[in-house]
């Protein structure tokens, strides 16, 4: 009985704590690179929230960011609204969008530091940015997010690097090179062109699904702990596994590491495609 009361009390507390104030703020920006060049890169460093990016045939970058702040009290909500904003930095060839607040240290903006921030102590409200961006197809992308949402990028002809932690990464109509990774999520990439140079795909706990038009000439390396590698490509040749040697020294002891990676040649080989998962399967398919 006593326990039950305690539970009710606890649940009550929680219920009270959960009674939050929420406010959504919509931020709209139109940006442009001062000097258009193939090196132009749009960088987004997000923490909570989704990134939806679409390539189009225009010149401007149209950003819609929806900032959601929620807190237990109106006062904290106001504090959040005061502190949190969308940071924008314009470099020579880069445009950087980031979450700007006193407790966020962005190494890209402020340089490296050894600072750690204590979420529970420093941040007494919740925030998330959901980005919707329209970007010229030729602009390179370098985008990051961590929680609550997904990354979806469509229709780019540039180099795309997309990292997530707790969510899916879906890249469609990719005409350039791709470097995609997530920890807890599925990875799906659809290429419209055979790879030029190298692509890499990584998911720790999800499947990796990659589609190419036809069978590209490529050297594929893959590694999966609990999963397997599947493909419907036909011009395959299983090559000797590639070994790597590493030597590190620390506190008077020397560590020698030998690792093997599976190696498959498709067609004539050449472009290096690296696949890695831990708990997921890898599927490499010809798109239909």
């Amino acid at each position: 009985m006593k326990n039950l009361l305690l539970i009710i009390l606890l649940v009550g507390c929680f219920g009270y704590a959960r009674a939050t104030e929420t406010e959504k703020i919509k931020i709209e920006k139109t940006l442009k690179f001062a000097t258009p060049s193939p090196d132009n890169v749009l960088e987004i460093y997000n923490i909570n929230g989704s990134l939806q990016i679409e390539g189009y045939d225009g010149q401007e970058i149209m950003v819609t960011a929806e900032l959601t702040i929620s807190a237990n009290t109106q006062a904290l909500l106001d504090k959040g609204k005061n502190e949190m904003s969308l940071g924008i930095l314009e470099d020579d060839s880069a445009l950087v969008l980031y979450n700007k607040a006193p407790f966020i240290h962005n190494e890209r903006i402020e340089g490296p530091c050894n600072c750690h921030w204590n979420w529970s102590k420093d941040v007494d409200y919740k925030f998330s940015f959901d980005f919707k961006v329209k970007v010229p197809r030729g602009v390179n992308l370098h985008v990051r997010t961590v929680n609550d949402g997904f990354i979806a990028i469509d229709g780019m002809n540039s180099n795309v690097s997309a990292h997530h932690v707790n969510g899916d990464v879906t890249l469609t109509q990719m005409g350039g090179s791709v470097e995609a990774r997530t920890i807890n999520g599925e990875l799906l990439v659809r290429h419209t062109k055979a790879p030029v140079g190298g692509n890499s795909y990584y998911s720790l706990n999800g499947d990796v699904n990659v589609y190419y038009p036809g069978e590209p000439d490529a050297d594929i390396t893959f590694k999966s702990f609990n999963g397997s590698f599947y493909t419907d490509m036909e011009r395959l040749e299983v090559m000797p596994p590639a070994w790597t040697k590493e030597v590190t020294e620390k506190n008077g002891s020397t560590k020698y590491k030998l690792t093997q990676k599976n190696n498959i040649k498709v067609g004539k080989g050449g472009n290096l495609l690296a696949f890695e998962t831990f708990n997921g399967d890898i599927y490499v398919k010809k798109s239909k």
Partner: protein
Amino acid sequence: MKKLIKLSFIGLLAAAISLPAKAQEGNKETIAIPLSSPGEKGKLEVGLVNGSINVAGYDGKDVIIEAVSGGGKNDDRGVVTPTGMKRISSNPMELEATEKGNTVKVSTNSWAVTMTLNIKVPKNFDLKLSTVNDGDIDVKGVTGAHEISNVNGEITMTQVGGSTVLNTVNGDIKVTLESVNPEAQMAFTTLNGDVDVTFPAAVKATAKMRSDRGDIFSDFDMVIEKSAPKVDKSSSNGVYKVSIEDWVFGKINGGGKEYLFKTMQGDVYIRKK
């Protein structure tokens, strides 16, 4: 066991046929590990789950490890291959060796990949080796304090010296000692297999021997003492338990440190060189 090996070999062949494979060539890699104090005594520690360990003493100063991956079990149970696709599975191997103060520790992902390690060490080296499945341990020409254990396989040592503590469960133990450390005790135990040990003729030792279902043979002139069966009685909750332990003791050349020889299903051979 043999059958299993054959089967997995056929499996490998099948895999090789289905895809043009050059995988065989790349399943070997060698790494040389220089010691911090070359020329001095060192120690090698290797623990495997699946695979064999072969150690040989040589006249060099480094520890040279040759890792051979393969023979791995590609576990196809519960795997559904999507239609129109093929599954390409092979387990890549990993090996990490750490050298500190002349001690080389080797760790691997042998819980996932069956492998063979061919290791060359300077002749004056202590060995601590163990494996569990799908492998034997073979040591040649190394003198030191050796502690070796296997579970489902043999332990073979030739031209070794020093002291050895050897243990396996399903497999034979076969050792030829060229010299012994008179200060050390030794043990040779298995459950299902023979224990066959050859000592230098001058060895002084007290052999403590037991074979539950086999015989004990020796060409040493041993002074045999059969111990009175040691009876342990214990009781709990009104139930009495009586266990009898029966060992044969034999003094070789007047006796010395205790050497233990034990097997359940198998014979014990103690030979004079």
